[in-house]
């Protein structure tokens, strides 16, 4: 396995390390804002989650919910999946095959901007959901009905496991950029998802589908949301985030997102390459251990901080009650880490999709696209955006943890109780800046 693939699923180029001054500035900013929030922010919870937001015109809600819109999106999802499946099954296993770029860049990274802009969109285009729906229609079954009831305590745990399985494929699996490997993963995922949906009904997707889970979580940082009555509203992202249900497994899912991105940074460093090359483990074993260890550290540190907060406040709270506040940090990391990859490789993948079978075709005229390398030539801008994303994510995390703490905990102890979480979040942020600086 090539080291470039130990470092990344795709892409032969990485961003330059950020300047040291910028890393220090970011860390200082994060610290100062943290304590400002603690000292100056509101003392009573202000966020009202799904009750909040300015209603958008009713026509917009009607249009979004119309059968026509829903089926257009489903058909789009199916058609896109069909093109990628064609490339994965019948395309040549060469660098010109768009499968890896489509899955690792357009889908996995693309979920983030799409969901930030429009909310939890993947459930609307999810091709596996559509296949299940169509099968149920043909067999005259109710797609919502399963053979068994899914206990609600299952929460997001299956999604966390699938998220781990996907990040393992993307960051660790041997030959992970080759089509046979991706094809095998996707086929397994597709089959097991359908089995889950048949067993528990279509709500299985909301509990288990990693791409839906990712989109639903990131969509909670969107400006666009839904009120309890279903009306589309414009709302502040932190209000939106506050409405994220504290389901079991939420922290596990968030920890996979943050931990895997951290691991991707670590594994791109020469330090890690030397460690793996000098070890008795092979790269797959070392990578698996590294990925699991990073995710476990993220989960354990935050769980410990919430436990401590509960002890200080005299009122225990489960880690999932605060997990939403780690989400902005994870998304900040993802933006910092994958921004240029998405822009550069995303364009490149679109061009490759013009010819998924490698027969010289130019489907949809995609082959005529001119790839812009402009962003690759703006290292100062990129470094600033990276640090900006990390710091903004940190601030959003601190503020949402603060609001949740003053809601859950007795007023006199709410501030002190936040300190452990604040410490852990500063840790994540400083670690993120260090990785951008050193790796």
């Amino acid at each position, binding site marked *: 396995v090539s080291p*470039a693939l130990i470092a990344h699923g795709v892409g*032969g180029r990485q961003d330059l390390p950020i300047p040291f001054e910028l890393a220090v500035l970011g860390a200082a900013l994060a610290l100062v804002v943290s304590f400002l929030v603690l000292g100056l922010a509101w003392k009573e919870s202000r966020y009202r989650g799904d009750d909040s937001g300015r209603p958008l015109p009713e026509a917009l809600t009607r249009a979004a919910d119309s059968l026509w819109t829903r089926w257009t999106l489903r058909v789009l999802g199916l058609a896109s999946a069909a093109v990628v499946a064609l490339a994965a099954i019948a395309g040549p296993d060469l*660098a010109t095959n768009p499968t890896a770029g489509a899955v690792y860049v357009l889908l996995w990274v693309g979920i983030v901007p799409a969901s930030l802009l429009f909310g939890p969109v993947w459930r609307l285009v999810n091709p596996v959901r559509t296949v299940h729906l169509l099968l149920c229609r043909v067999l005259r079954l109710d797609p919502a009905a399963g053979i068994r009831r899914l206990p609600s305590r299952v929460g997001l745990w299956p999604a966390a496991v699938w998220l781990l399985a996907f990040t393992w494929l993307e960051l660790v699996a041997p030959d992970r950029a080759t089509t046979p490997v991706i094809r095998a993963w996707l086929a397994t995922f597709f089959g097991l998802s359908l089995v889950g949906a048949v067993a528990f009904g279509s709500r299985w997707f909301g509990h288990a589908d990693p791409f839906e889970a990712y989109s639903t979580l990131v969509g909670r940082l969107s400006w666009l949301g839904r009120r309890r009555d279903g009306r589309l509203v414009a709302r502040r992202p932190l209000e939106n985030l506050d409405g994220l249900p504290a389901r079991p497994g939420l922290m596990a899912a968030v920890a996979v997102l943050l931990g895997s991105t951290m691991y991707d940074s670590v594994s791109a460093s020469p330090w890690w390459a030397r460690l793996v090359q000098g070890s008795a483990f092979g790269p797959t074993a070392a990578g698996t251990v590294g990925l699991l260890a990073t995710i476990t550290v993220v989960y354990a540190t935050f769980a410990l901080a919430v436990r401590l907060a509960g002890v200080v406040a005299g009122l225990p709270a489960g880690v999932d009650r605060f997990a939403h506040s780690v989400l902005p940090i994870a998304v900040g990391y993802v933006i910092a880490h994958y921004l240029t990859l998405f822009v550069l490789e995303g364009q490149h*993948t679109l061009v*490759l999709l013009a010819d998924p079978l490698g027969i010289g075709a130019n489907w949809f005229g995609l082959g005529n696209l001119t790839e812009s390398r402009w962003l690759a030539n703006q290292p100062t801008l990129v470094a600033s955006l990276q640090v900006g994303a990390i710091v903004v994510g940190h601030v959003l995390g601190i503020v949402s943890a603060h609001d949740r703490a003053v809601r859950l905990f007795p007023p006199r102890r709410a501030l002190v109780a936040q300190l452990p979480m604040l410490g852990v979040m500063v840790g994540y942020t400083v670690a993120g800046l260090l990785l951008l600086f050193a790796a």
Partner: protein
Amino acid sequence: MSTPPSSRSLPSRAMVLLVLAAGLAGCGDAAGGSAESAPGSITAGPSVTPSSPPTPSTTEARTPLAPEIRVVEVTIADGEVQTDSDQVEVASGETVRVVVTSDVDDELHVHGVDQTAELVGGEPTTIEFTVDEPGVFEVETHDDGRLLFQLLVR
């Protein structure tokens, strides 16, 4: 354009390596028609291994030696990589000359410029190129997948 072979008759491992060599998306020319957008340009092809120059066609593309050439020497012995630094910093457009001596046969690959050269066991191999785009590019061996160093282009 150094296209990977289109034949499926190659052993699968070689196929995989070639795919990696082409550096799925982003590694330049191999990715069909994106030569203009590739981040680097090769001013001198994989040049003369002392024994037998395998790629005579590229030598004519060689430019006269620029006054500033960054020379990086790498030794690979018993699976251990020895370099002066894990990260080599160069300016965008600066010529880089990498001299690799490996105790086993292997293939050298520079990401970003998608430059490869045969490594013959025990003999130094020289590869020369420039990268015109900022970023971090990995220089590695293929057969045993070892990172030799990272090239930091500023």
